[in-house]
């Protein structure tokens, strides 16, 4: 508390600190709050308000993280390369990053996996879906029926909205990725172009590389901003397409996933785990 008061007048702060604080709030305050609200058994209007407040808080928390990423990227474009390879992410998270954060497909994949259809023979073949149901049964007991059945046979309207969201993401992600590739290709073109003029002079060569790199980071910054905007809009769309119980379960799963990736116990084991394992 004292620290935040002292920081009040500082112009900038380290992003890593912000992320640590943000994650702490997610793990210690918002996720438990949401879990509590999902489990409180009575279905009175006050618990429903509590649930929607918890959902709202968690959703806003996620949104604010992407806004902060964009703020850091737009304040100066030389921060961008490090935002694309964020040092505050642990080695368990890094391979799952796409343009600096979670792949936007994760949101829709997760959403899809929540649906439980009675007549869905195919899904029960899927191993992961089976595990999902089996394991959840224990810890979901004691939750009100609205929560337990929230994703059972969702309405046609919800399903079609979900499809729309998925379509949107599937259109946007390849476009983003292509833009990133084009920026990289432009970089080599520029360097190759300037290389001839540099004619072996070290200073000119460095200048050529520097200029091209600056242009590339500038271009990639736009891609990064749009990637985060996409993540934000997908989350917002999901929130608007689902009812309060569905949204609650979705956000719970998402937050648990984020927290799980930073579980210190697992991380410790992971760091010592050899690649060749019996």
């Amino acid at each position: 508390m004292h620290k935040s008061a002292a920081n009040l007048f500082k112009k900038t702060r380290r992003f890593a600190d912000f992320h640590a604080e943000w994650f702490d709030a997610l793990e210690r305050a918002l996720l438990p709050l949401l879990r509590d609200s999902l489990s409180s058994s009575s279905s009175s209007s006050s618990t429903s308000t509590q649930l929607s407040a918890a959902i709202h808080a968690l959703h806003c928390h996620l949104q604010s993280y992407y806004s902060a990423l964009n703020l850091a990227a737009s304040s100066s474009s030389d921060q961008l390369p490090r935002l694309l390879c964020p040092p505050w992410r642990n080695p368990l998270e890094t391979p799952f990053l796409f343009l600096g954060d979670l792949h936007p497909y994760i949101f829709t994949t997760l959403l899809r996996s929540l649906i439980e259809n009675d007549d869905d023979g195919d899904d029960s073949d899927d191993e992961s879906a089976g595990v999902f149901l089996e394991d959840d049964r224990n810890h979901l007991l004691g939750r009100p029926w609205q929560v337990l059945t929230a994703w059972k046979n969702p309405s046609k309207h919800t399903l079609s909205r979900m499809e729309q969201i998925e379509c949107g993401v599937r259109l946007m992600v390849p476009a983003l990725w292509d833009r990133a590739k084009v920026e990289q290709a432009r970089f080599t073109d520029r360097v190759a172009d300037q290389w001839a003029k540099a004619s072996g002079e070290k200073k000119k060569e460095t200048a050529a590389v520097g200029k091209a790199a600056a242009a590339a980071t500038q271009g990639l910054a736009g891609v990064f901003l749009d990637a985060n905007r996409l993540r934000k809009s997908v989350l917002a769309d999901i929130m608007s397409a689902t009812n309060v119980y569905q949204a609650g379960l979705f956000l719970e799963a998402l937050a648990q996933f984020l927290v799980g990736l930073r579980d210190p116990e697992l991380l410790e084991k992971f760091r010592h785990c050899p690649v060749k394992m019996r």
Partner: protein
Amino acid sequence: MELNRRSGGEGKITKTRERNHSKKVASEDTEERLEMRREFEGGTEDMDELSQKLQCMAFRTPKIGKNVSRRQVHDMEEPLKEGWELDFLIEEELDRFHNCNSRAMNPARLSDVAKMLMPDSTPTIELACVGWFGDWRPSLILGFLHGLARSSLPVSDPGQIERTLTQLIREVRIEEAVIDGEMAEIQATCVLRLPFARQSKGPDGVFPLRSVYSEFKKIKQVINKAQQLRFRTLELVVQKILDTTDAAAFLVEFEKIRHGLHCFAAEQEQRKGPVTVSTRGLRSISERECGNESPHRSVKSIDKRLLKNGRRDCKGRYQTHEDGTALARFIEELQCELQERCTRNRKM
């Protein structure tokens, strides 16, 4: 065909060349061959410079048993060919590239897989500009050659090379896209494959580690594919598309640009501190998005609250209220803040 092309410094046979060749006295034909080259080739100076540069590059690599035996094979076979020492040096350069790759391809620990994607030794600017699975994107290597062939690198048959390269770039891009697709699949489904979203810990948390392990195995395989594509692309360019002299010239330029970019990026990175973000911006985000404060609240009430908060903060921050200078600074900052809010509200 390259024999007639370089018509530059004919007859300028430099001492460096002799020095170069004295290092390889394995073949008795050397002098004779040199003589032949001198006659036919004309601009030997370029060649010598190249081979010297390549040699410099090659000497930086640790010699490995495999290389030695390869060299012996070469010593026996190659003297018949023109420009054999360039071939040899190109081979060595490729070996070096391959060894770098294969060393990175065998991480000891699972957590090193992340380092394959973002190696500690590679500055982030380099990764942003040319990176793809931790090293140069293969199509960019080709693109760079393409650019050089158009501008500064004199190649033997520009038209033919241009056509081949355009075709090859298209093919390599497709292969890249396939590998990207595999990675995207892993990244998109990790939320299902890793058990965190479901909160199901096995005894002692073994279960999560097992799924992490299998995901990372998959990721490692994709990285290996990417690295193979990278190496194959370079090999193809150097051995199939370009003739020996062009290949050597290209490798020298490529190494120069790799080095140049690396140095530039490393220097830039060293100069910069950690990633920062404006506190004021963060505050306005949390107000705007977390609903701590309605954006339409009147400035007056914000004013009051700010002052109240400010007084509280002031207590923690400054020893006494009597400290006139500190208080003045505080008020100044408060005014700035207020002004900003006013303009923002007006905009809205």
